[in-house]
């Protein structure tokens, strides 16, 4: 049942504050993890029906009356659903031990589930206005979660995030409304059909620019990225992982490329603009990451840089480029989730995130150090880890499409990426042990377990990259590469 992706988290989230009055910790922990495990299972079970038919369009009946609860599912959305469920399950596993710092588990989990519901909704709805709405659902929950620690930095970050994000969503809605005015409808299918025989490219161009700015801000493309390096590091580690791993991808990249490919249709002009922005993001953010001392802030800039890679890949417009971009999206979700959770472990273990204060932790906390290394190398694109393959595919696709300059940028920036990740390794895990950390112990069980699961995923996806690529990425890339036809085919 596809609707469960939206309803169940919302329902549990509504109940959790009440349950929280009864049981402060155990029941919320168990309930949230069970819910997300169920969703993960559900998304895996959907593989067969979706891929056998290409897409799934479902309507729901309410007390015999036809109501318009319509959802559409194709390869692209299913990949996102799977990623969301997978990474958020690991994140909640991590939270079991980590939330002792914050308390109020019930409230935290409720917000987290609302965010998951919002992202799931965004991925499933075939309707522009609903996309905006679910975007807001996830966003409102994320504002509160960023500020969850209630410290001055958290509040500052959350406020800036909110104020920038609100402007972005205003422009998104404005653009949606104008498209509504142009075509008279909001559902993807009708809009796609309407736009096909509409001659208003100028107005549409402005709308697309608004979309690029709005979703680009959500995805933290340079120059719309400024909120991210504040918001992601300030949030509690699981939320950083959630935001960097999932939210920017779902509410930024998924929404943008769903609209660009499946509703409006990719044009060379759009491709040029998006690729340029992707390349700028890669370089600027990589340079910025080099200058950081805070682990999480470095990771946040790295997210911007990697989002640049994803967008660069997706915007090429060739099937290979799309596949590379989507594969990198998945790999980055896993690896960046891992790294942020890992930074949470480091903070839990030592109480600091400043690279200059750390050092030599590798001897004391080998599991944390090892998983961090795997995640870092995966993102930096070191074979045979997952990130290597996706970057390789993107670069090959760039060369295939004759974008040699961008390919060069991608290669050079991946050296920069490796550089700053090795900086983390060197400053935090290798080198002489700082006397302050003589008595530290490995992080608690669930935190370590979540790290290990994600690290294994990085490794296994890298080693068995071809089956993963075939089952999850290729259908998703097909769905996007078919362009507008894919949406017009929904439900047929």
């Amino acid at each position, binding site marked *: 049942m596809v609707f469960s992706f939206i309803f169940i988290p919302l329902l549990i989230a509504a109940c959790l504050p009440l349950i929280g009055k009864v049981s402060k910790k155990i029941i919320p922990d168990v309930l949230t993890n069970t819910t997300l495990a169920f969703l993960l299972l559900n998304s895996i079970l959907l593989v067969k029906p979706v891929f056998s038919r290409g897409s799934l369009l479902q309507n729901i009946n309410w007390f015999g009356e036809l109501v318009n609860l319509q959802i559409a599912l194709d390869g692209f959305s299913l990949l996102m659903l799977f990623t969301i469920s997978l990474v958020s399950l690991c994140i909640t596993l991590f939270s079991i031990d980590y939330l002792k710092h914050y308390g109020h588990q019930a409230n935290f989990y409720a917000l987290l589930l609302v965010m998951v519901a919002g992202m799931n909704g965004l991925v499933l709805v075939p309707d522009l206005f609903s996309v905006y709405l679910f975007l807001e659902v996830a966003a409102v929950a994320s504002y509160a979660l960023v500020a969850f620690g209630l410290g001055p930095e958290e509040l500052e970050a959350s406020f800036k995030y909110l104020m920038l994000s609100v402007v972005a969503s205003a422009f998104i809605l404005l653009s949606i409304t104008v498209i509504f005015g142009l075509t008279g409808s909001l559902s993807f299918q009708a809009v796609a059909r309407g736009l096909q025989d509409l001659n208003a490219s100028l107005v549409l161009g*402005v709308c697309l*620019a608004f979309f690029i700015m709005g979703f680009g801000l959500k995805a933290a493309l340079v120059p719309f990225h400024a909120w991210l390096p504040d918001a992601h590091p300030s949030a509690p580690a699981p939320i950083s992982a959630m935001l960097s791993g999932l939210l920017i991808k779902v509410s930024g990249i998924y929404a943008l490329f769903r609209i660009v490919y499946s509703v409006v249709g990719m044009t060379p002009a759009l491709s040029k603009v998006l690729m340029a922005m992707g390349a700028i993001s890669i370089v600027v953010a990589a340079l*910025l990451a080099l200058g950081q001392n805070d682990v999480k802030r470095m990771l946040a800039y790295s997210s911007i840089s990697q989002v640049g890679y994803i967008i660069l890949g997706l915007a090429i417009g060739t099937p290979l480029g799309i596949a590379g971009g989507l594969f990198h999206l998945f790999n980055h979700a896993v690896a960046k989730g891992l790294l942020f959770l890992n930074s949470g472990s480091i903070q839990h273990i030592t109480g600091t995130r400043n690279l200059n204060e750390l050092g030599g932790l590798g001897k004391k906390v080998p599991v944390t150090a090892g998983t961090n290394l795997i995640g870092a190398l995966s993102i930096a694109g070191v074979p045979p880890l997952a990130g290597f393959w996706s970057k390789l595919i993107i670069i090959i696709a760039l060369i295939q499409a004759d974008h040699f300059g961008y390919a060069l940028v991608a290669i050079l920036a991946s050296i920069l990426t490796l550089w700053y990740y090795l900086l983390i390794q060197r400053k935090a895990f290798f080198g002489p042990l700082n006397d302050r950390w003589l008595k530290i112990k490995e992080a608690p069980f669930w935190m370590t377990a979540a790290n290990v699961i994600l690290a294994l995923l990085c490794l296994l996806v890298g080693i068995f990259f071809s089956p993963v690529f075939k089952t999850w990425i290729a259908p998703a890339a097909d769905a996007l590469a078919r362009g507008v036809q894919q949406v017009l085919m929904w439900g047929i």
Partner: protein
Amino acid sequence: MMATTLLWPIIFPAVMAIILFLIPARIKLVREVLAVLSSVVMLYLGFSLFLLKNLSLKTNWLGMGINFDFRLYQFSAFILLALSGFLFLIVLYSTIKMKDHPRIREYYAYVFLAAAFSNGAVLANNFVLLVFFWEAILITTYALITLGLKPTSHRTAVKSLIIGGLCDFSMIMGIGLIWASTGTLTMDQVHLEPYGLAAAAFILMMIGAIGKAGAMPFHTWIPDAALDAPVTFMAFMPASFEKLLGIYLLARISLDFFELKVGSPMAMVLLIIGAATIVLAVFMALIQKDLKKLLSFHAISQVGYMILGIGTAIPIGIAGGIFHMINHAMYKTGLFLSAGSVEHRTGTTELKKLGGLAREMPWTAFGFSVCALAISGVWPLNGFVSKEMVFHGALETGYPIFAIAAWVGAIFTFASFLKAGHSVFFGPRSTEVPKTRESQWSIVLPILILAILCITFGVYNKLPLENFIQPVVAGHAEPGQHIDLAAGALNLFTPIAGVSMLCLLIALGLHFYGWKQGGKKAYLASEPIHRLPVLHQLYDLSEARFFDIYEQGVKFLAWLSRMLFKFIDRPIDFIYEKVVVSIGRFFTVLFQKAHNGQYGNYLAWTIGGLIVVVWVILKLLQ
């Protein structure tokens, strides 16, 4: 028998290497027993494959003519058997000699890996496969030298790796040329006349082969390794395995891949290299004051006989070269193992400190003496037989100079072994080493086996010559010509044998002259020759490693790199350091400054970005 049996000599030792590596360092007995047992199994495999003679295995691998192609025939079967025999002896010897080595797990693993790769190289029937195994041997050589655990071991290991790598690179280029001119990578399909491009291919491949065998000028790592590597390694690699492999390949190059004609330019190249190696290395050997180093120079010098033999391109010469290869492997391994035995008991191999050990270590002394006489070519030992064949071949080429060079080599070989044997085992008992006794049986046994083999192969030379050597050369004799190598091999009353015996007598005379001159100290017996006017300067230069192309190459490279560093690297570095990194750093700092935390600033970027995107899109749409 299944064709896949051919894979056994490769897979089995490789698996054993892993198992031996995994056995914890403390369980010594299990490892030793297992190692000896598996070398026995290898010996059995060698025998059974030798009896089979013809077998081949071929499966497609990478395409483009690169196939998984193995072939066993009389020559490779013979080498395979020899390899497994030496492996057995060395493993047996190692059980005592290497007992307390701190990295014993690695030692056995490398030894068995080296055996696996060597077997692979011998069996390979595809050039790419050959190169793969050839390079892999190089790596195990490197690893084994580092196990010497001396401060300079690593440096020597790197030296061997670089020299070997250069030779292998040359071989790869040669293979490339062969591939380009014949279009095939299958070894038994290649048969070229060595002219023009093929001559270049021949030279390049030959360098690969003689480099592995340790001929001049690719020898310089061997004397260094004599001091820096474990002595078992010396017996294992430079004395036996690498000689066998290198000469095997040289023989295949000269006989199979290329058609080497008597007196052709390529044959001359081989003859010159062979003669030069004999003479120069033997002169270096003569003056050495360390037993292991002395032996290692002989290991180089003797390669010269093999190359000379093959270079004659006359069946009897070729047979002599190949026979000398197997003989040399036996007595040189025996000599190294004896030196190891002496080192094992006394802790030193310096000639000056030793003396009169024959009484305390009779078996070692016996083994050493037999092997030393064999290497010197004393009747009726195996060295005599093979050397006579080489002299024969050399004379038949019509260039007596090469035969003379070989004889000169024989003189000084005997002289230096007289000196070595005299100073270690005979003469007055030295006071510098405490009283000692004979080594354990598993050290002595391999030495005795080898000594007995030396005698057997000499006296009953019919056995090895007819079983091993004749089939190899048979195809290269002129039609109608019957080769009977064994007949008259031990005949003392021929002019050639007479000259040889004369040489030995001269050597004896030289030794006694030197011994007397040096105040009856045997280790000074070579001093008169050392102090000869021109030779003296040459020796000094050589001691300063003036003739070591590696050292000179290193010096040149150091100079070159200093120049490059100053005039090319620094400017580039300046561009990189000062320009690229500074620009990067500049932008990093600039961008960081731009992120000043002010909301208005961030929003301004957003709006500015929006305006730019709108403008660009509208521009692109028009």
